[in-house]
């Protein structure tokens, strides 16, 4: 519904006032077309007639994407890849709280859902709940603010300071073209789930999670293998109860598992990554290999392409995931060279790229990011391109609707 209904009255001299929702920003981000007729001559007739233009929801064409991932949010790799697909680097808002979790670029704004914690660190400690527990989060406020941003209304969003563990004074968030909400519970609340145009869940298996956390935390003085393990074990019940069930609602799940190419590998350097794409999602067509809907297993290394150990293995096929039809694209192994990447890209279909080699170019742009040589980086980049395609389709359909309305 991108139409602003304009109510005009019978009188010739009418003064129109525009009543819009509070805090709407007429910035370059919005394509508001407001037609109003004002008359300087005062009406001689009695009874002032006013024409009110109301702008209904959806006019600002904000597309909302949800990303569910463990261990909080911030400048994570996926977000940087995603914002880079749209162009520009996402940065924290200038001049604001330096500990803000928000990232803003030209087209996208990334909001960390930790900002909607209802209990700060001491509060959670007193009550004995983790951040994963829904009791520690204010879902009503989350729903209200995401709904407002989707409708083109700026909001004052609280800030959760990860360093101090306190809730800082709010910051102003203006509605962007693409809003990404990232955190532990984007799909937990049903109302918020309905606002999402696309949702992604990053499912890291326990072994890989353990390996990654060891890499991250062993540099810290206080940590040891036991403390890392204890931390994961302690959070596991809450994680399984509250976070994990969200994956059934996601439109795309990126599942990261240990590799099957190296027997008894426990280093976690080579990964097997599966991109599980839900079928029948509006504006989203799954990536496929060779033939849509058929099952195929593919090892690109051979005569045309030489790969080093352990090589690369792809597979694609239809499947069911929590009772829903999905297509699964899987990559096991690592990219070593540029030509492996471009070779693989040339054989994947439905990538939503604008030119040949765009996936490779995006991967190379961020070759220093973790996962740039395996399926995590590849699938994150592909999902980023899919989201761009989804955004363009939604925007095109919203601009087409009022044209049809005026024609009718």
């Amino acid at each position, binding site marked *: 519904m991108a139409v602003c209904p304009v109510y005009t009255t019978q009188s010739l001299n009418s003064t129109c006032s525009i009543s819009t929702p509070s805090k709407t920003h007429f910035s370059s981000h919005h394509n508001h077309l407001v037609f109003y007729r004002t008359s300087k001559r005062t009406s001689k007739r009695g009874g002032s007639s006013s024409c009110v233009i109301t702008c209904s929801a959806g006019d600002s064409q904000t597309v909302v994407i949800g990303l569910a991932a463990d261990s909080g949010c*911030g400048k994570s790799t996926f977000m940087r890849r995603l914002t880079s697909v749209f162009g520009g680097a996402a940065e924290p808002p200038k001049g604001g709280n330096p500990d803000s979790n928000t990232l803003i670029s030209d087209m996208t704004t990334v909001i960390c859902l930790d900002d909607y914690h209802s209990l700060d660190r001491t509060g*959670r400690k007193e*009550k*004995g709940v983790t951040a994963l527990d829904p009791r520690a989060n204010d879902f009503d406020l989350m729903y209200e603010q995401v709904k407002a941003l989707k409708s083109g209304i700026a909001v004052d969003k609280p800030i959760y300071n990860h360093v101090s*563990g306190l809730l800082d004074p709010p910051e102003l968030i203006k509605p962007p073209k693409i809003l990404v909400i990232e955190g532990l519970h984007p799909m937990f609340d049903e109302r918020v789930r309905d606002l999402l145009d696309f949702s992604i869940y990053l499912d890291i298996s326990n072994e890989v999670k353990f390996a990654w956390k060891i890499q*991250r*935390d062993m*540099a810290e003085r206080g940590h040891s293998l036991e*403390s890392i393990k204890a931390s994961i074990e*302690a959070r596991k019940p809450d994680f399984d109860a509250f976070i994990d069930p969200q994956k059934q609602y996601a439109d795309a799940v990126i599942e990261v598992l240990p590799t099957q190419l190296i027997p008894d590998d426990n280093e976690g350097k080579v990964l097997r990554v599966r991109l599980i794409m839900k079928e029948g999602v509006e504006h989203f067509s799954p990536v496929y290999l060779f033939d849509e809907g058929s099952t195929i297993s593919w090892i690109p290394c051979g005569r045309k392409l030489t790969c080093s150990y352990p090589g690369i293995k792809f597979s694609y096929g239809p499947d069911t995931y929590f009772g829903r039809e999905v297509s699964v694209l899987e990559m096991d192994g690592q990219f070593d060279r540029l030509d492996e990447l471009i070779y693989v890209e040339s054989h994947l279909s439905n990538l939503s790229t604008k030119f040949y080699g765009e996936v490779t170019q995006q991967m190379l742009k961020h070759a220093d990011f973790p996962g740039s040589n395996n399926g995590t980086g590849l699938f994150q980049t592909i999902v980023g391109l899919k989201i761009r395609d989804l955004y363009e389709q939604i925007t095109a359909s919203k601009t087409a609707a009022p044209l049809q309305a005026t024609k009718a």
Partner: protein
Amino acid sequence: MATLFTLNFVTPRATASLRDSTKGSPIKVPYLNQPMKRVLSPLESRRMQVRAAPDSLSEKVEQSIKEAQEACSDDPASGECVAAWDEVEELSAAASHARDRLKDNDPLENYCKDNPETDECKTYDN
């Protein structure tokens, strides 16, 4: 660092944690303007080293791990234990983000991000 410690010492939070803090009496701060002139009594100096709150994230992580291990020694399944380890996880994540940010902190790059037209930052790409 000494001045920082002195200031920490003066905050109400820190003074409240002192065992022998004089309750009700105003906090004497003659040394705020001249931090170097502060003379510590032996009792106070010992206490200050023990009681000062950790500034850096690494110390916070360390302390939270110790607290979590203490909380879990009584009852591993209790809410306190789980919440304590969750805090450890949160602080470890914050510490690793801070480390990543430090790694990327090139002063020239930071300056050029905000002022790309200055002589030092102009790029000629054609």
